[in-house]
């Protein structure tokens, strides 16, 4: 089949986009649509699954197959699609509450299994749809509708959590930077296995300017640490660099260290320790914060193994025969005529009747 040539509009639906004016979700939507169009892969082969939240409205606006499911469960539902249909490209769109609060368990299990789904976490550090309660990524002390005296929850670091959950692809970007976003989408798409991308997303109504340190014209210059494979980790126009000190990633003035001491970023390291160390450079976008791909390694995907076992079984045992199956536990025949019709025991099953103790 010839690869179709698409424009962004081919991935727009007839549904009116219903986010607040100025919401970061609009930008991310544009980036994703543009990226999809660029792939030139048939539209019908994409599936977008979301949970509940502002972010989770996403599938209504992307003209592919999609499901706006229930709160927190998108990774599980997407796993059902991806594992049974390796021919599809399955994406999960979720929020910081949807993915990390109610959906935390499905997220970490999808990552450890390395199911071939691409997870986009729109992190606005707030519950937007329910109108502004603190979330698992909100900063301590935040006053919200549900924390009038300040939140006392210590937040997750989504990158650290994903790495602790054995994720094979872990990255971070920010809504406003569409090129950077699309670069990461491409990398996630090319990665064989589950991919996790945290996208800083501005909620201008309930948590405005939360990411100003990495988006503000002045601020970002000093705070945005771009992780680039094979390149030394430097930022602030080269003035600052990241080195290891006692096993911890540490920010120093570039000129204060021997260049060879500066960490050269390698996203393909089998051991996630370095990626984890880099994730600890920031605990939220409040100062120097790494963006880019923290980890990108290969590991057999759940889907492949899942379907390989089926294929192998068919090879080895042959396509299943129902008649054989139901007589596999030992059978006997009662032949006409009546009462004492002779019984010929036939094939004796090789497996004992189910018994649940011994």
């Amino acid at each position, binding site marked *: 089949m010839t690869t179709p040539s698409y424009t962004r509009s081919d991935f727009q639906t007839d549904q009116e986009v219903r986010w607040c004016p100025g919401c970061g979700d609009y930008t991310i939507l544009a980036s994703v649509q543009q990226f999809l169009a660029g792939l030139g892969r048939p539209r019908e082969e994409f599936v977008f699954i979301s949970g509940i939240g502002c972010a989770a409205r996403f599938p209504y606006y992307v003209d592919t197959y*999609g499901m*706006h499911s229930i709160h927190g469960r998108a990774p599980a539902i997407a796993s*059902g699609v991806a594992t049974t249909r390796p021919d599809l490209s399955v994406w999960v769109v979720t929020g910081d509450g949807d993915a990390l609060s109610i959906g935390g368990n499905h997220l970490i299990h999808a990552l450890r299994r390395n199911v071939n789904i691409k997870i986009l976490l729109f992190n606005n550090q707030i519950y937007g749809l329910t109108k502004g309660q603190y979330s698992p990524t909100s900063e301590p002390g935040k006053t919200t509708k549900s924390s009038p005296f300040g939140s006392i929850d210590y937040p997750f670091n989504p990158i650290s959590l994903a790495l602790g959950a054995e994720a094979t692809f872990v990255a971070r970007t920010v809504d406003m930077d569409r090129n950077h976003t699309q670069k990461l989408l491409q990398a996630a798409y090319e990665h064989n296995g589950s991919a996790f991308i945290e996208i800083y997303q501005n909620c201008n109504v309930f948590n405005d300017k939360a990411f100003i340190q990495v988006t503000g014209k002045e601020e970002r210059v000093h705070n945005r640490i771009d992780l680039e494979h094979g390149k030394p980790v430097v930022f602030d126009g080269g003035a600052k660099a990241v080195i290891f000190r006692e096993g911890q990633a540490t920010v120093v003035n570039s000129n204060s260290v021997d260049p060879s001491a500066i960490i050269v970023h390698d996203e393909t390291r089998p051991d996630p320790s370095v990626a984890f160390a880099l994730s600890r450079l920031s605990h939220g976008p409040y100062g120097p914060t790494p963006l880019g791909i923290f980890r990108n390694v290969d590991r057999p995907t759940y889907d492949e193994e899942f379907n390989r076992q*089926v294929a192998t079984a068919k090879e080895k045992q042959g396509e299943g025969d*129902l008649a054989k199956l139901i*007589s596999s536990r030992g059978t006997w*025949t009662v032949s006409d005529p009546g009462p004492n019709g002779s019984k010929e025991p036939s094939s004796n099953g090789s497996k004992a*009747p189910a018994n649940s*103790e011994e």
Partner: protein
Amino acid sequence: MADEIATESPSSTSTEALDKVVVRFAGDSGDGMQVAGSRFTDASALFGNDLATLPNFPAEIRAPAGTLPGVSSFQVQIADFDILTAGDAPDCLVAMNPAALMKELKDLRQGGTLIINTDAFDERNLTKAGYTKDPLEDGSLDAYRTIKVPMDSLTKEAVKDTGVSGRSVLRSKNFFALGLLAWLFHRPTEPTIQWAEKKFAGKPEVVAANVAAFKAGYNFGITTEATKITFEVKPATLRPGTYTNVNGNTALAWGLIAASKLSGLPLFYGTYPITPASDILHELSRHKNFGVRTFQAEDEIAGVGTAIGAAFAGNLAVTGSSGPGIALKSEAISLAFMIELPLIVINVQRGGPSTGLPTKPEQSDLLFSLYGRHGESPLPVLSASSPANAFDMAIEAARIALKYMTPVILLSDNYVANGSEPWLLPDVNSLEPFPVEFARFPNGPDGSFLPYMRNIETFARPWAIPGTAGLEHRIGGLEKESISGNVSYEPGNHQLMTDTRAWKVANIANDIPDMDVGGDQDADLLVLGWGSTSGSIRAAARRARLDGKKVATANLNYINPLPNNLGDVLRSYEKILIPELNTGQLLKVIRAEFLIDVTGLNKVAGEPFKVSEITEKIMEMI
């Protein structure tokens, strides 16, 4: 080797012919009673008896050896006519240790045969079992025909040259008991010996030991003439055909595989282990060559979640659990109902509430199945009434889910799931296929696809699966606009969709068999049941008829919607009795639906009805 057994023993023992007999094996969890029972059962099945079994094991986890909680038992009834239950009081009890005797003796009928492993009756075991005096001495067993056998020593002796040693030696004890019963009840010996050879192929010494113990037990009967009377139960008059002995979990799993063949869709089972449903997962996971995919999820929510995803993707999607797990699935099932995807939800009921009695049968999830979801979300609810019936109902659940694009709840329970019965194998080619038509082409104006444009007969919406060009669409849990499927908050639409969803399910009544009534046509009383009680009900009615009572019986495999003719049937009887292993759940449904004053017989004790309990109630009523 079988010839080593003197099958025609020149003995002075006489043989008593029985139409049925109930045997219970009871011993410590470690004594292999479940295996002994299953072997006795299979041998009897192959011999041609009709039969029904009731395994019974206490907690989910091993109790200390020799204690009451550690007792594991297996009861089987064999007969020369078609029976319906595993029987009430055993005619013969095998007690491998004091705890087993203490726990089970009360059930043995007066004058019944009691076989005791005397070697286990030492001081320690007696105290563990709570005996202050030795029952073998104090005459408390006089009411029974007691056969005392030092099984440990005889087994040791029997296996001494087979090469097994240490702990393994006494493992063959259950085969000794089995051999003795084979003699006592004239069972064929080959099946058991063959089974041992197959089962332990690769461990020749184990085969040898078990066979030796088995023969020793058999010969012990002959040589010692352990009892003057042996028993024989002639083969039953079963409908001709090929039979197998199957339990409900296995039959249900096979039914799902059959449904996969009949529908032409790959089977997906998303679940999380839980007693007593786990064996469905275990069975399905072995049959990947049928294209079966089993997904052991992180929890029940993910279990149903993956199944919903698989349904969206075009699979025959199934999830299964028991009460606590079904509760967790409730929110997701409501989603499946809203987005109208086919999904089978299996609930193998156990004793509740909460963790309750995980290994005991109960029927207390009926109303939960009907109403256990928020919002107006009526679902088809089906119920399996016997191990073999589980095969058929699994297929029915699939047929309905796929034809009407709806989740379907299929109820089983611990008695159906772990009990077994002879099953006349169906001719697989005679099973009615129900191939699925996915949507392939736009169904709307100018090439658009309308996911909620319904089939005018079934009111099912089209099923367009990802990968189908031109049918890209989005569904979700917010109320959908009729036809277009877009999100809609419009009052009239919500009313329309609520009514449509309800009507779609109600209409299934026209696609299921009428309820047929068994027993006397001119009966004064109808006994109505559902699920695993159906056997006891028919058996009880039978007994009542022997006393000249006119009784009709009926069983509901379809609980929502109810069969069209149910109302007329019920109104045609003066009295109606509904026995249930709950506090009266079907009773509530019938009262609300038909405003008929029905009588309930209710038991919530973690065990099935005794036939006698129902018979008594019948007698009391007419």
